[in-house]
């Protein structure tokens, strides 16, 4: 099984007629994802390589029965695009847009909770989600993933997600689902949401969790793991050597005072029984050991 998406998930792409949306949307379709439509205001009735384009999400949902949306629009339009998706009947929204103002993200998060409690947002500023062999929404290259499980991956970083997939696939270890939750300060989906879904998924036997400096999501995840997780978790936290007070590329990756350091996160995870590794390769090797011993 997979989490959040599967081979039957019907997906629309908001921004399909734009450069990024078209590039990744078509790649996702080539991978086998059911990309059933696109949305661009004013371009309804046209198509992109045979994929019908609609003016609104509501029209797209009515015509195609889509339940998921891939949001690839510029930062200034992203908040509205996400809310339109939720109002239009979409249940799972993946937003890859980088550079959305933090205040917009905070408002979107709280409006979704209050007005559309059944809707899940993944991202913003994330690589997306891939369930190898079934569904790929976002920018992850399908070539580096391997179908068949038994590992679930959840990560705050894009390239480190690819690195993790690669480390496992090379060793012949497949993945059930790989979720990139993104590096922004207000992620729609957090570590705990994914860990809980992996814990509940019978095909996922172990979980790789990749964190980074900033915030306290890793510490909260550690607390949750300690009390709820029965499956083994291997973790790597990037940014041990990051200087305090500087944003390391991701808006969310900043150490404030003594809070948010990689060391504090690793200590919390270790204390929760997680296998904490010092670099992505070591994490891959540890996971290979664990899977072989299953």
């Amino acid at each position, binding site marked *: 099984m997979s989490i959040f998406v599967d081979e039957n998930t019907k997906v629309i792409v908001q921004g399909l007629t734009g450069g990024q949306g078209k590039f*990744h949307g078509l790649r996702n379709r080539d991978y086998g994802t059911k990309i059933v439509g696109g949305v661009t205001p004013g371009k309804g009735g046209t198509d992109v390589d045979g994929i019908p384009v609609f003016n609104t999400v509501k029209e797209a949902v009515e015509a195609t029965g889509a339940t998921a949306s891939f949001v690839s629009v510029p*930062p*200034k339009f992203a908040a509205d695009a996400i809310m339109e998706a939720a109002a239009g009947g979409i249940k799972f929204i993946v937003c890859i847009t980088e*550079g*959305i*103002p*933090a*205040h917009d993200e*905070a*408002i979107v*998060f*709280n*409006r979704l909770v*209050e007005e559309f409690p059944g809707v899940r947002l993944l991202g913003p500023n994330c*690589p997306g989600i891939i369930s190898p062999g079934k569904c790929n929404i976002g*920018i*992850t*290259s399908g*070539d*580096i993933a391997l179908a068949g499980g038994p590992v679930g991956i959840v*990560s*705050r*970083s*894009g*390239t*480190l*997600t*690819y*690195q993790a997939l*690669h480390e496992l696939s090379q060793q012949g270890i497949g993945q059930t689902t790989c979720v990139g939750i993104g*590096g922004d*300060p*207000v992620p729609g989906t957090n570590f705990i949401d994914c860990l809980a879904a992996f814990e509940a998924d019978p095909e996922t036997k172990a979980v790789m969790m*990749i964190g*980074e*400096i900033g*915030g*306290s*999501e890793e510490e*909260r995840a550690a607390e949750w793991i300690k009390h709820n997780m029965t499956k083994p978790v291997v973790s*790597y936290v*990037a*940014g*041990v*050597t*990051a*200087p305090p007070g*500087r944003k*390391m*590329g*991701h*808006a*969310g*990756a900043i150490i404030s*005072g003594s809070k948010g350091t*990689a060391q504090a996160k690793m200590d919390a995870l270790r204390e929760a029984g997680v296998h904490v590794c*010092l*670099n*992505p*390769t070591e994490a891959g090797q540890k996971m290979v050991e664990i899977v072989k011993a299953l």
Partner: protein
Amino acid sequence: MDLFEYQGKQYFSRFGIAVSPGDVADTVEEAVAVAERVGYPVVVKAQVKVGGRGKAGGVKLADNIDEVRLHAGNILGLDIKGHVVHRLWIERSSDIAKEYYASFTLDRPNKMHLGMLSAQGGVEIEVVAEENPDAIAFLSIDPVRGLDLGTARRWVADAELDEVAREQTAELLVKLYDCYTTGDCDLAEINPLILTPDNKVHALDAKVTLDENASFRHPEWEEFRATETEDPREKMAKEKGLNYIGLDGTVGIIANGAGLAMSTLDVVNQVGGSAANFLDIGGGANADVMASALEVINSDPKVKVIFVNIFGGITRVDEVAKGVLEALKRVTISSPIVLRLDGTNAVEGRAILAPHLNEKLITEPTMLDAARRAVAFANA
């Protein structure tokens, strides 16, 4: 983007928040002119983005024109923790009856805004939080609903501010919240927020951090950007559109993706080296980007070796390899380059580089191997 105190105060003024009358001065004569205009006594304040100005002699009271000359002359050019003072803020000195603290920031775990208000201002809020946490009234604010005056009134009472200050402070907090949200701040902090002996409340300091992601709706931020003093390496990188942070080590780093770049720093550190920088070239690692990246790193005299760590996803490694060769034609690089190329089309990429490899252009199969090789060069 962090603002200078004077910029923070100017930003506050736009939202109707009371600050002391004053102006900026870049020379002694300008300082005198401002002082004569606002009236004595004045405070002469160094404009640097670092704490502890007062202790370093960067904040002085002046009662007359001679004192303004003396202090402005001494403070301009002063080095405060590595920050040289180029600009002063001269403002009318305020008599202080009470010092409070007020701020708004994002409470990330709760995805709400967090207001902090305390009757004990003038000291670092971290110290108050540590020693006397009950002295801070925390307010969680739903970003959708915002902060209304009624809530602000209850909040100032909770914080046990002096009765005479409450209504004015409640009104000021609503304005500060507006500045924080409409003004797209990551942090809007007033410390101290003062009550004067004649019962007026106003901001005596301003600490504002702007969310650069919101630049598109704030063309007025351009003036703040112009005054950003920074590391010359960072300035060059910014001009070339690179995401670069200067550090103190000897291993220059180029990686694609923020997470991988951070991870590269960590691995270099683990094998006994230290990074000279953080540099994320993002998704499109073409020849132009690679040449710019190599150029910026090459300009750093501390760099002894360059470690290029690329994991191809959407970015194809063969394109990266071509980019490196093209870049090397354009820029003469003095340090050896160690590359680790993996992911999409890695085999093709390595094959492209193969005929060009020599003792100063080396590939290694894994991130760890490449880090060891680079550090060996750096420590040789």
